[in-house]
C-alpha cells in the first residue's frame, strides 16, 4: 500500500515535470438489465473493469467506477436532482467518462430521433435522451473533457447536429456508434479496452517510464479519434459505424482536435463554435 502511494506520487511528479496531463476518470458498466425487462449484457462490466484497469496502468486518478444499478440514470442528466455533478458518481465530475451498457436504436434513425444512454438503475428514469437532457463540460458547471460510449447507436450520424453538438459545453471529444436495431453492436469483451489502450498508448509522458516501465509504453500512442477508428468496429455487424466528434473554437481547431487530441494533452476547453467529426463503417 505504502509503495503504491509512493509510486503514485512519483508518477505525478514526473508527469508534471514533463508537462503531461493526468486526467481523472470514471467508468460506468451495466451488465444487469433483466430487472428492467431487457436482456443482460455479460461483458459490459468486464469491459468497464478493463478500461479502468488500463487507465490505472496509465496513472490516471479514479473518481468513480460504478457497476450495474449503481450507474444511475441521473448521472447523465444536466438538470434535476441529482444530476451529472452528483458527487458520488455523476458523469460530469471526472475529465474522462467511459460508459458500457445498452443504448437504444431506431430502424432507421431520422435527423430528430433521440440518441440514448439506457441504464437499469436505482435512480431513474433509465432512458436518457442525450440531446434533450445532457450537457457536459466546464460551460455547464462540470469537468468532462472526453466521453466514451460503448453502447448501441448512441451517436447516430444522421442526428449529430440535434443530439450531440448542443451537449458539448466544454467537452473536447466524444466517441460512440451509429447503427440500427438490425445492424447493431455486439456485447464485446475486448473492443473498449483495445480502444483505451490505444488512447493511453505511449504512456503519459515521454520518459520511457522513469519510475516503472508501464507496458503501454510500447503500444501506439493514437489520438482519441484514431483510437476509436482502430477499435470501434470490433464485434459489430455490417453497416455499423464508429463515430468521433471534436469541438473547436475555429475550423482548424476542430479538425486538429478531431485528428490529434489525446487524453493526456492537457488542452484547454474549447469554445464549441465548430465541430469536426469522423466515422468509419463496417
Amino acid at each position, binding site marked *: 500500500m505504502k509503495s503504491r502511494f509512493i509510486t503514485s506520487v512519483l508518477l505525478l511528479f514526473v508527469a508534471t515535470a*514533463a508537462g503531461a496531463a493526468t486526467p481523472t476518470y470514471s467508468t460506468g458498466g451495466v451488465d444487469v438489465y433483466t430487472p428492467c425487462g*431487457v*436482456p443482460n449484457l*455479460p*461483458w459490459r462490466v468486464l469491459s468497464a*473493469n*478493463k478500461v*479502468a*484497469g*488500463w487507465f*490505472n496502468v496509465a496513472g490516471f486518478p*479514479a473518481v468513480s467506477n*460504478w457497476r450495474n444499478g*449503481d450507474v444511475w440514470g441521473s448521472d447523465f442528466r444536466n438538470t434535476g*436532482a*441529482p444530476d451529472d455533478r452528483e458527487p458520488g458518481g455523476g458523469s460530469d465530475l471526472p475529465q474522462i467518462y467511459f460508459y458500457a451498457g445498452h*443504448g*437504444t436504436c431506431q430502424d432507421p434513425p431520422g435527423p430528430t430521433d433521440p440518441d440514448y444512454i439506457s441504464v437499469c438503475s436505482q*435512480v431513474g428514469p433509465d432512458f436518457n435522451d442525450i440531446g434533450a437532457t445532457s450537457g457536459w463540460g466546464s460551460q455547464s458547471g462540470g469537468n468532462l473533457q472526453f466521453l466514451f460510449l460503448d453502447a*448501441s447507436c448512441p451517436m447516430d450520424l444522421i442526428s449529430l*447536429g440535434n443530439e450531440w453538438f*448542443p451537449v458539448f459545453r466544454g467537452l473536447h471529444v466524444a466517441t460512440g456508434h451509429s*447503427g440500427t*436495431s438490425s445492424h447493431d*453492436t*455486439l456485447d464485446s*469483451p*475486448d473492443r473498449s479496452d*483495445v480502444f483505451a*489502450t490505444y488512447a493511453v*498508448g505511449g504512456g503519459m509522458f*515521454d*520518459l*520511457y517510464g*522513469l519510475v516503472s*516501465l*508501464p*507496458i503501454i*509504453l*510500447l503500444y*501506439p*500512442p*493514437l*489520438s482519441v479519434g*484514431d483510437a476509436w*477508428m482502430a477499435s470501434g*468496429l470490433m*464485434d459489430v455487424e455490417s453497416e455499423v459505424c464508429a463515430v468521433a466528434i471534436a469541438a473547436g473554437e475555429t*475550423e482548424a481547431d*476542430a479538425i486538429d482536435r*478531431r485528428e*490529434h487530441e489525446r487524453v493526456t494533452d492537457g488542452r484547454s476547453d474549447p469554445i*464549441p463554435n*465548430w*465541430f*469536426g*467529426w*469522423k*466515422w*468509419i463503417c463496417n
Partner: protein
Amino acid sequence: MKKKFALLGFLPLLAGCCTPTQNVRLAAKIFDMKFDPATKTVEVANLTGLRTDNDLFSHRNDSRTYFLYDAARASGTAPLFSGTDEELLALAAGVLKRAHVPKDEVAKARVLQEQTGVGAFDRTTHAITDRKESKGKRYALLTREIQGVPVVSSRLLLTTGYDKRAAFAELHWPVVSKEVLREAKRLQSLVREGWKAPEEQAARPETIEAVIIHSPAMATVMDIQAVIRVIYKPAEARVSMKVQRFFDANGQPVTPPRTFAKMPEFGSRKRGSQGKP
C-alpha cells in the same frame, strides 16, 4: 522544458538493452520501417520494441503480434495514400507474408474508408453551416479463419502514408495449436448437428457458430480457446446491443480470454446511498 530535458538524461539507464539489432531488422523486414541501428530496445512485460519521437515498432514475445506507428504518416492531416484499394490490400498481404502468416488463413481482405466532416454550429438554431465532408484515411482489414473455422479475435489493420509506407499497423495473429483447432472442428460438427443454444432472458438466438477466440492484441497474457459463439437479439426494441455469449460443447458458459494476468486495482465498485433522492 529544461526540467524535461534534464530528466531525459536518465534514459540510457532505464531503457532496455537486449536485442536492438534484431528489432531494427524485424521492423525493416515486416514493415519496411527504418530505425537508426543505435536505437535502444525497450522491453516491458511481454513486449519488446523500439521508440523514437516519431516512430514505434513493438512485438509480443508470447504471440505473433506486432504494432507499428509512424506519427507523421499516420496523422489525419498528412497527405493521404492515393493508390487503389487493391494496392493497399497488396501492401497488407505483403506484411502478412513477411510475418510468416499462412496465406490460406486470410478469411476476408477489405478496405475500410474513413470519412471526415467539419462545420460551424449555431447554438441557437442548431444550424450547421460551412459544412464540408471528405474522405479520410483508408484501413486495410484482413480477418482470419483456419480450415473453415473463424478466428474472430485475429486481424491485421493497416494504414499507409502517401508514399505507401506503413503508418499504423496492428497485426495480431497468434499461432493456434492443433488441439484448439481440433476442438473447434468438433464444436463445428455439433453446431451442424443442431446444437441448441441455452435460452437467454428477453432475447432470442440469432446466430450460432463454432469459433476460435483469444486474448486481444494488448494483453499481458495469451489465452486461446475454441467455443460456440451465440449472438442473441433483444426480443423488443426498447434497448439494443446484441448479446454475445461463449459456450462449451455442453452449453456451459465460457469466460472470455483474459487481457490481464491480474486485473489492476482501481478502487471501490460499490456506490453508497449518499446523493440518492
